[in-house]
């Protein structure tokens, strides 16, 4: 499943994303891709939700990836060292093509 994120993912919006990810997880998906390419802004509160989803996926044996985002997003991911832990792909179509098991959203 691909979740396409729009707007500003900040402290105010992070709980909404957490709820949506948990809803997706409870539907029994094989892999989750968070498409960050349309985000206007990301802060550490939003990033924490992304990292928590990554951690759950690892523990529960699900695929998990994020797409590259705009420069502000990439810079935050770089500072936080996220690229060392989380699979980052150029775009959502890319991973869906590479992993036939992952259902399209």
């Amino acid at each position, binding site marked *: 499943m691909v979740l396409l994120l729009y707007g*500003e993912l*900040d*402290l*105010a919006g992070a709980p909404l994303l957490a709820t949506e990810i948990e809803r997706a997880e409870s539907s029994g998906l094989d892999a989750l891709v968070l498409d960050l390419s349309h985000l206007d*802004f990301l*802060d*550490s*509160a939003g*990033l*924490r939700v992304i990292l928590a989803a990554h951690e759950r996926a690892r523990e529960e044996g699900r695929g998990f990836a994020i797409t590259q985002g705009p*420069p*502000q997003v990439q*810079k*935050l991911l770089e*500072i*936080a060292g996220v690229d060392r832990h989380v699979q980052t792909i150029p775009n959502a179509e890319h991973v869906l093509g590479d992993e036939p098991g992952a259902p399209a959203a």
Partner: protein
Amino acid sequence: MARLPNVRLDLLNKPENVLLVRETLTGVADATGMHGAELSDIRTAVTEACNNVVLHAYAGSEGPLEVEVMLDDGALEVLVRDHGVGIARGAPAELGEPGLGVPVIEALSDGVAFDEVDGGPGTTVRMSFNAPGSRPLEPTPEGSTIHTLTSPADLQGRSASGTAAISVAPKALARAVIPRLLCVLAARAHFSTDRISDSQLVGDALVAHAGPAAEGEYLHMAINVEPRDLELRVGPLPVGSAERLVLDSDVRGLGRVLEKLTDNHGVGADETSDTLTLQLLDRV
């Protein structure tokens, strides 16, 4: 000797208020011609400092979030202040993991200092940014003092979630910041796009006509947000100038903008100053 800020925001430490801080910074960048990458780093770093106030400064309860922006030639200083336990002691313990906020601030700013608030409790995070792409504004007038209509203590007792107070100078900065903030607050009040646009026009008119008395001085505004209801209190203004501000807002073909686009307006006056109150409603 502390410099006077170009912008001071008095907010409550609510998650949604951090957007107001970011929008203010975007307005500052518009007014100074700052580069996109410079603005992006400033927005990210200042957001993290504000997030820490929201999450940690008041141990789960509400309290003031104060932000000050000072422009200097090719540089910007931003202060984020709380009157609670602050960033230094609160963040890591409560998160149960090393906080990301401080490393992000350190990586994106050109200098950061954490100071105890004089007479505490509280912490001031002082961030400096080099912004070689920015052009200087007219300087903040010497001798001006900031008069916010609501002190942080007053804000704490309010029920309205959207209440904000801003003081801004000079006029070139107010022009870039005030209409932008009113748009965000009108959206928060669930206004229609037409009414959001009206709110922006009211902001434009206020800044344009809050002179000549206010030229070179601070424009002070307190904004109260309720569902479909935006109340602006502008002042202190020089005695006798509030009504004139309304009369002067005449635009050919549109009439007096501050009358036409608002649902109510009123002038409060005492011996030393006027206050102009404007109310915008959106009746669906």
